Each structure stands twice: as C-alpha cells, then as structure tokens.
C-alpha cells in the first residue's frame, strides 16, 4: 500500500490502516528501541504508542506530510523513547514535586471516569470516542455507525454524553468532586 492510500484510509477512520502499518514497520521500529538499551516489551510499547500518536495526528487533518510515513513514525518513536529514558533516570534520582502529585490526582479521577465509560453501551462508547479522540465529524460518525443522517448521530452523541456525565456525577458527592 502506498503512503497516500494509507492516509486516505486513516482519513476515513479505517483502523485496518493501523494494523497494516504495525506489521510493516514492526521490526524497524522495535529495533530502534532495543538497540538503545530497551527491552522487547518496552520497544513494543513505545512503537504502539507512536503509531497511536501518528493516527491521532493524521486524523486531526493538521498533518502536513513532508516525509515518508515510516520516517515520521520513526521520529515519534525516537521522541517517546527519549522521554521514557528521561523519566526513568528522574525516577532513579527520586525527584518529586507537587506537579506530579496533582497529575496523580487527575489520573485517579480519570481512571474512575473510564470505569463509567465502560458502563455505557458499546454504541455510546464508540460515538464519544470517535467524536472526542478521532475528531470525526457527525457526518462521518453517522456513516461509520450506519445512521440514516447526521441529526441522528448528533442527538445520539448528546444523549450519550449526558448519560456519561450523570454516571460520573453519581460516583461523587458535590463535596468530593466539585470543590
């Protein structure tokens, strides 16, 4: 598959393009991490994250490809692995600050919200993920989920979001969460 075909698939929200890229560059990208003192698991992890970053960027429509897809993914891998190495060396120096503590609090909140997301039905989950992560238009969401028109998708998205907000708020009393 040519780069242009891959990008066209991604712009339609076709995840099979991601599967294709994953297999195609697996060796090249994991080797990058492994030959820079990473384990095989770390390499796979970094490569998967890099591909998802690529997907997100390509989906945003703001991506201007000035190089081959492989070069682009390679540089994302490199950046992510560099960051991971920095994080590891910071951990070994036992630096701690308030920012990290706040991040942990936010992380915990988001973990609980993710449980609420899992309580939603599959359709609601898809709509919200396609809208907020993939940045799909209501038109594309209607297409992908087989709705008759854009308005149906819009109404559904509104209801699903409302349902999620209710679930999240029911997990917390006002004093726990709102101040």
């Amino acid at each position, binding site marked *: 598959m040519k780069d242009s075909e891959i990008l066209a698939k991604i712009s339609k929200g076709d995840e099979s393009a991601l599967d294709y890229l994953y297999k195609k560059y697996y060796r090249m990208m994991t080797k990058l991490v492994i030959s820079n003192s990473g384990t095989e698991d770390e390499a796979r992890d970094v490569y998967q994250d890099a591909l998802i970053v690529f997907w997100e960027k390509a989906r945003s429509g703001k991506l201007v490809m000035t190089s081959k897809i492989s070069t682009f993914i390679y540089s994302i891998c490199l950046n992510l692995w560099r960051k991971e190495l920095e994080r590891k060396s910071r951990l070994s120096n036992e630096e701690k600050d308030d920012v990290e503590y706040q991040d942990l609090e936010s992380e915990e909140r988001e973990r609980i919200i993710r449980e609420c997301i899992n309580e939603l039905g599959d359709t609601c989950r898809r709509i919200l*993920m396609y809208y907020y992560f993939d940045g799909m238009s209501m038109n594309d969401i209607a297409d992908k989920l087989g709705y008759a028109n854009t308005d149906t998708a819009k109404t559904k998205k509104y209801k699903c979001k409302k349902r999620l907000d209710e679930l999240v708020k029911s997990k917390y009393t006002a004093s726990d969460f709102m101040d």
Partner: protein
Amino acid sequence: MSQNFDYRQLIDDYLSGNISVQNKAVVEHKIATDPEFRSEFDLQKNVINAIRESRRLELKNRLDNIHVHWYHSIPQSWKIAASVSVATLTTISAFI
C-alpha cells in the same frame, strides 16, 4: 436552564477544539472569575481526557492482539538472501 445548557455546550466546544476565538475568550474569562464554572470545566476536562484515554487503550489493545511474525517485517532483500542461502545449503547437502 437554557443559559446553563449554553455554557455546557461552550465547555464542550472549547475542549474538543471546535470553538470560535470570541467564545474562547468567554470561556477563559468565566474560568478566571467563576469558581463554579471552573470546577465544571475541570470535571469536563477529566471526562474528555478519560474518553480519549479509553480510545487510546482500545487501539493499543487492538495492536497488541496482532501477532507479528518476525518474517512479516524483515526487508525483502533479506528474504531473498535467506532463500538463496537455503537453496545453497540444499544444493550442498545434496552433494554430501
């Protein structure tokens, strides 16, 4: 009630990046001056981040389930070299 709804919509538009410059300023002013609005904003930020993270985890899980055989992603030239050496070995062993 309707005003309440408008603000929710504004927060949603702000966090999903679909907001006009003018409305962006409205949201930022409210964040700075209205504590109740601010906590709703923070909550919504967590909700939307959580949705994004769920999708990220889903995609990661998808990739994790793809079994990549080492042979799939080695360069074509290596495959040719490998088959040539296999052929050579077979020829050699035929002579032994």
